[in-house]
Structures are given as C-alpha cells and as structure tokens.
C-alpha cells in the first residue's frame, strides 16, 4: 500500500502535461472572461461551466497581457454587477421580522393580545429555547431564530427550508433567507414598522425591498449564524446538498445522540480495562516472568499472533461512559443530506454527513485528541458495511466506525476534512490471506 501511495504521489509530477482530473476549479480564482458567454440576462439552460483557463506565469509590460487582464476584469465587473431580478411570475415576496416569529397583525384582537404577550415573553428568553412550544405565538413549532416569513410560499426551495406556522406563512431561518436573497430567489421587504410611516393606503404596502447589504447586516450574527457557518451552509447548498441545523447549533445544547444504534452496551474505561486484564491473563500468561507466547502446543501461527497482541487498542464500537462533552467549535452544527436522499422537512432522515464548522482565525491549532474524541462520540456508530467494505481492508480503515466532517473556514475560503474513527486494532492482518497473484480476489472476512 505504501508503495502504491508513493507512486500515486509521484504521478502528477511525472506527467505534467497531462490534465489533472482531480483539480478542483474552485481552488483558485478563475478567470471571469469565461462567463462572457453568459449574456445579460442569462438563460437558465446555459448552466455549463467553463473549463480551467491558462494563466500567465508572471506579469510583463506588454500591451497584450494588459489587454487580457483588462478583459478579465471587465468580465468580472459585468458578471458581478448583474442585478438580482424577480420576474413577476416567479417572484416570491418575504417580510423581515426583526423581533422573531410573531402572529400576523390582522387577526382577532383578543387573541392577538394574548399571543403578543406570549410572543414578547418568548423574545425575552431569546436563545434559551430553540424550538418554541406549540401553544405560543405562531402555532406550530417555528424555530425561535426565524426572522423572515413568506406569506405565499411557492417554488422548490421550501421543500427543504423553512417552517410553516398556523397561518400558512413559512418562516425562514437567517441562513435560509440570506441564501435565497443572495441567489436572487427571494424578494425580502423591510417591515413597515422599521422604515417609518406608512405610505398612502393601498398604494405601497409592500415596504422597501431589502438590499443584499441590509440582509447581511441583519442576518449574520443573528441566532448563532456566524459568517463562517453561513459560508459552509451556502457553499453546500450551491452544490445541491440539503443542509439543516443540528441540535449542537447553540452553544448551550450539546447534541444528544441516542445510543440505541450502538450494538454493544458500554463497559466503561475501567470495565474495559478489567475485561482486557482478564483476557490477557487467560490467554498470554504473565509476561513479566516468562515468554509472551508461553509454553504449550502451538498448532497455527494465528494462535501465536493472537497471544502476541498484548497492547490494548481503541475499539470504536464500545462506548465510553460517561460521554465526554463536546467543546465548541468542535461540535456538529449542520446535518447534510445528499441531493439523492429523500428529504422531508417534517421528519428529517438520518443525515448523510455531520459537519462541524471551525474558524481558522480563532482556532489556530489542530483539535486535541480529547476534543476530537468527544466530537466523534457525539456522532452515531457508522461501521463499514457492504460487500466492498468486507473485501477491502483499506476502505474499511478509511471509512472508520464513526465519522464527522470538519469545515475549516479561513476568511471565506472553506476546506472540508473528513475525520474517521479507524479501528486498526480490529483488523487482524495475520488472519488475512496474502493477496497472491493467482488466488483471485477472494479474501475471508476478518474476525471481529
């Protein structure tokens, strides 16, 4: 394996001219001239992306180079000055509610009074409870952090975003509203209460449209939404993933993972130690006084190897108790679903990925083993399964028994790292048949 890794590492260097398939286009700034073919206003059909362009090595004082640079900058300017337009047919109007979820103003007076009171009470205990109880303000549990409502929701986005209240208005969380306004799919209006006196009746009851700048000013920093978290959210959304907040979003609440999925009940560190001591005594004899393997009849190498395995190893399957508490930022804040996963807002399935967001400017060091361990323990057991995994040991090791994704954000640049809890101790290499050239691909299942 080491050899093939080496070979792979050398490959790109030796074949410089060959196009590198795995190059990620978003790794570096791309030349905006490639967007030129997207004329104003673009067609929705024209969504193919340009290829990676050739760049120059260093500036030289030629007009030729200056012209190309000018053209690039011009293309960038054009692309970025494209306005966010809403065709009357597809336009979705939303309203900003600076004070969080509240019932509509035009309902029965007595009822309104009651609910206004509860609503203000709830707002006072801001952030303490994430989900409001069903009786209060907006009826069905609308997350407390919601701050934009859509009276007339239409379009595909609301399949995976927002929560409807009793009056059929869909409430959006700050990141959802910001994402939608940014991609030009939502027309958010300032509430009349903020922008001052109402205009003449009927003429303009919509309020002033909210600018992108205003949306950033109002939504980032609200309800735990840092710009780092938003960058991760919007980046994944753009790629088609469905992203929702995980229970660990708020600093107070740790993600509570039901451990039903863990097949073995935890023994605890002490219990495990006793268990190991017990086995060790039984199987290997006393190493301080005699040979490790001990005397006796040894009929197979496997028995000897098993007796040689005297060093305890980390088994991800056995649960540690008590569970360590995760420390922010090493805590799952997003649940992510692949585009192919069937997603229902009301009953989100088990997430495909769990993501913790780290700001590289405030967290400049690698997480400690304790931090990582606690983070991994907060995720459910996800052992490597399937025919392929059974066959290939390195895939098993890479997959691990628990996994989590760290999204490290450096001033708007996001890098994703997958952390897996690999169980090297569980892979009995001696039990594997060596992959002989003529023996075919079959290998016995390793003993657990």
């Amino acid at each position, binding site marked *: 394996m080491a050899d093939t890794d080496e070979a792979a590492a050398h490959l790109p260097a030796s074949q410089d001219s060959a196009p590198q398939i795995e190059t990620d286009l978003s790794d570096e700034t791309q030349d905006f001239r490639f967007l030129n073919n997207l004329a104003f206003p673009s067609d929705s059909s024209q969504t193919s992306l340009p290829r990676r362009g050739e760049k120059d090595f260093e500036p030289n004082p030629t007009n030729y180079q200056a012209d190309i640079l000018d053209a690039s*900058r011009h293309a960038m300017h054009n692309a970025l000055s*494209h306005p966010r337009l809403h*065709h009357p047919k597809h336009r979705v109007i939303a309203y900003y509610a600076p004070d969080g979820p509240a019932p509509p103003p035009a309902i029965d007076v007595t009822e309104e009074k009651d609910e206004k009171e509860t609503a203000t009470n709830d707002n006072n205990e801001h952030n303490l409870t994430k989900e409001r109880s069903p009786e209060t303000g907006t009826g069905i549990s609308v997350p407390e952090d919601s701050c934009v409502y859509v009276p007339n929701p239409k379009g595909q986005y609301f399949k995976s975003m927002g929560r409807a209240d009793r009056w059929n208005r869909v409430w959006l969380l700050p990141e959802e509203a910001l994402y939608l306004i940014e991609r030009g799919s939502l027309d958010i209006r300032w509430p009349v209460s903020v922008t001052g006196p109402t205009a003449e009746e009927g003429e303009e009851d919509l309020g002033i449209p909210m600018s992108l700048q205003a949306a950033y000013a109002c939504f980032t920093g609200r309800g735990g939404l840092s710009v780092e978290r938003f960058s991760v959210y919007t980046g994944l959304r753009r790629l088609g993933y469905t992203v929702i907040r995980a229970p660990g979003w708020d600093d107070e609440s740790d993600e509570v993972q039901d451990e039903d999925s863990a097949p073995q009940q935890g023994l605890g560190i002490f219990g495990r130690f006793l268990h190991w001591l017990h086995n060790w005594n039984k199987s290997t004899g006393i190493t301080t006084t005699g040979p490790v393997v001990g005397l006796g009849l040894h009929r197979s190498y496997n028995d000897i190897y098993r007796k040689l395995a005297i060093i305890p190893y980390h088994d991800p399957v056995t649960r540690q108790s008590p569970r360590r508490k995760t420390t922010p930022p090493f805590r799952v804040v997003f649940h992510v679903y692949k585009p192919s996963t069937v997603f229902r807002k009301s009953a989100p399935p088990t997430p495909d990925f769990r993501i913790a967001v780290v700001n590289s400017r405030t967290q400049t060091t690698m997480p400690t083993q304790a931090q990582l361990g606690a983070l991994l323990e907060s995720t459910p057991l996800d052992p490597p399964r399937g025919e392929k995994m059974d066959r290939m040991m390195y895939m098993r090791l890479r997959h691990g028994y628990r996994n989590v994704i760290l999204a490290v954000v450096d001033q708007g640049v996001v890098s994703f790292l997958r952390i897996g809890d690999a169980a090297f101790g569980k892979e009995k290499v001696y039990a594997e048949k060596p992959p002989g050239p003529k023996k075919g691909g079959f290998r016995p299942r390793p003993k657990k």
Partner: protein
Amino acid sequence: MDTDPALPIPISYISGSYYLFSIDAVTYLRREHHICGVLIGTLPQIPQQNVFLAMPLQLMPEEARLLVDKGVACIVDEVKAHKDGMTSIMEEDRKRYLQDLEAEGLQAMRLQNRRKEQLREEALKNLDAKKAAKASKKAAQKQDNAAGDDFALELFAGGEQAQDAGPQRPTPSETAMAVTPSTSYPPMPSRPTSDQILPSPEVPSSYPLFAHLHTKGYFLSPGLRFGCQYLAYPGDPLRFHSHFLVVSAEWDEEINLMDIIAGGRLGTGVKKGFLVGGAEQTGPGSEDSVRMFSVEWAGM
C-alpha cells in the same frame, strides 16, 4: 467600469467580518490597490456552482486595515448604520427610491423580453433555413408582423428592421421586475455619520509581512487551501498563478525544522515557493524591517 467611487470607501463591518457590497468599490480596489478579497456570495446567473462566486466580497482584517491606513477606506458599523438609517428615511426619498427601482425593473424586463424575441428569431431563422421550400410564404408573414412589433423592440432594436416570424404572441406585459439591490445606499444617506465609523481593524501579528509583500506589488489572498497563511500572486489572481505560500513568524521565534521541511515540500508539490518571513521589532515608526526567506525543495 472605470468609475472611481468616492473616497474613503466605506467597508461594512458586520459581526466580526469586513465586507464590500458595491461592485464599483470592488473593481476600483482591485485595479488601483491590488486588494482582491474573497467573493462569498452566490452568482444569481448560475447559482448552483462554487467556481464563480459573487458579491459580497469578504476582506481579511489585514486588507481592511491596509486600506484604512492608506486613507482609502473607512470602517462602518453596518448593523448600527442600518438601524439608524432605515428608520430615518424621508418619505420623499422613499418614494423616489421605489420609483428608481421600478424604472430599473422595467428596463430589465424590456431587455429580457427583447432577448427572448431575439432568441426566438434565431431559432425561427434556423427553422427557415431548413424549410427553404416554404421561404416565400414565410416572408409574406414577416411583412405583416414587422408592423406589430411592440414598443420595447423598437426602442432597443435601433434602426434595424426587426424580423419576426411565426404567429404573433401577445405583447409581453409591461410589469416591472422586482429588483433586489446590492447596497442600501440609496435609500440610506451615502456618507456614514461619525458615530458609525469604527476604529482600524485588529490584525494578527503577521500584518507587517502582509503589508510588506503588498507594497512589493504582490496580490495576497487567504492561504488555508494550500496550508499557509497567505498566497502571494505576482499579478492579479484572475490572470496569474500564485508564486509563494506565505507563512509569518515572529522575529525571535524558533521555527521547527520539520515545519520548514514540510512547507518546502508542500510548496514544491504545487509549484510554488515556501516563503517564511517576519518583522523585526525595532520600535514604532521604522519601516522595512521585514525579512523573508524562500524555501525550495532541492532535488539532490
């Protein structure tokens, strides 16, 4: 494109980060001051991709500080500005603003309709070429329809005779598109008041190195993707690959040899130099005390 925005350019400070929302400011700072920032917004034309991103532009604290030190920009507390600004908009300003937006939306609608017409024409022209036999019959139809072209077409088509074919569609409705503007100025007053101005941004200890490289003409961007602090580009990143992976160190800091080896190896792997540097603490006022070293993997 070459419009210069009024100085100092307001940089929006929102919950710990620095942003630019005006495209003119972005273009100007890139052209004149080699400040690129990172685009973090979704491009509304093609929203489902991460290669080309759009406004807003996020600035590193170092970049914001550099611009403030140069006197090109000032930091505005955007949350406060919006709180103050939105409540104090005059009724007339509000009306005028909404009218302006509507005019813009109307213009956009006309442009789009015109483009649709053009596309339709092109498609039909292709069809015509295929159905050469029916050409004469079509031509007669065109004559009829040219008279019925709507206002928008005549306005934008200039002198050329619009050639329309096929059955006449109902005139596209003249309702304006709704517009989501990029910035909040207007309707808010374009100059921030003095109590909305914030002091210079706090910067990490790598700032002297950053500023030094910037004065040498390098374009700098965050370097996490390549495992360093900054990427140094010899020219605009639109047209050039970066040359250096930049890591800052304190003047008397003991650098782990392994870090230098790792950095050199990493840089060589992506065809860049590994650059480590720092500033000597010589007291305030003295400049150019930054030393830099570039490490390359020598293939012995």
